[in-house]
């Protein structure tokens, strides 16, 4: 349930950038989440409607872009996607792998309507 704290962070970052850009209203918020981040989109959406009340972000739509987890095998140099579970390199069976993508968690952009 740390989604509440996360949602408050999203709001504060969005408001900061909205104000810097003289926004009258924020219409859309684009968030990037890696597959390995333990964040539940639905919970963020639920908290969002509550925490954004009485701000220029109220009513903004949240869009979540999911980045699949990809690993790189340092032995045979194969890059491979994670399926359901963590697994060794599908090509050579090595456990010496490192995560290439899947740990992202950032606010990518906002869409605003400017003051007239």
């Amino acid at each position, binding site marked *: 349930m740390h989604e*509440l704290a996360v949602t408050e962070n999203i709001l504060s970052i969005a408001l900061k950038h909205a104000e810097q850009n003289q926004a009258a209203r924020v219409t859309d918020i684009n968030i990037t989440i890696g597959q390995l981040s333990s964040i539940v989109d639905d919970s963020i959406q639920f908290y969002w409607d509550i925490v954004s009340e009485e701000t220029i972000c109220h009513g903004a739509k949240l869009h979540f872009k999911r980045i699949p987890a990809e690993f790189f095998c340092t032995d045979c140099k194969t890059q491979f996607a994670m399926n359901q579970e963590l697994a060794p390199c599908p090509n050579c069976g090595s456990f010496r792998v490192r995560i290439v993508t899947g740990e992202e968690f950032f606010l990518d952009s906002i869409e605003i309507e400017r003051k007239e």
Partner: protein
Amino acid sequence: MPTKVAVVEKIMDANDQVASQIRDKLTSKKVLAINLMASPGAGKTTFILRTIQELASRLRIGVIEGDTAPVTIDADKITAVGMPAVQINTGGECHLDAMMMSSGINQLPLDDLDLIIVENVGNLICPAAFNLGTHLNVLIASIPEGDDKPYKYPNIYRGLDVLIVSKTDLLPYIKFNMDYFKQGVELLNPGLSTFALSATTGDGFSNWIEWLEKQAELMKQN
């Protein structure tokens, strides 16, 4: 007509900034701080008590206890052995964050300490997302929790500096495939420092104590 504004800001940035200030403060005071995470019932408090008992003659230790409920059961056990303890009630939140940590260290006598042990809220998900400004992230994985935990909670294993495999005295009674467990850890955090031990029997505990004391010494030499 809506305009797109590029942001590209890490969502945990505010927490990370506070954490970084805390780490600088602790480092300048030469106090080593460890963030101890585990699931409920893994034996965090027992582990801390034994660690304190074994190091009490050589290190000055303070403890920050994170709990979701306003109970001082854990903090009371620490103060009973004569060490300063601060209780932080997270008010239902499932983790400690950098702001809570900041209030915790402000209540401890930093000039008179060598080591701070932070007992995070018992949870394998949320604490992984919040840097506290400690120098080391430590996880206790107890044998009865099962060998699949690295696969189910990859995030917490990713951020670790040290792994404690505890309650090894229960290995004869529980189905726990150590190879499968270690493979999961290796995939997520290659070469992770690991100590297998039992805080009840003391088996393997001295390796951990030696290692921790060494880290505290290195902090003093900084």
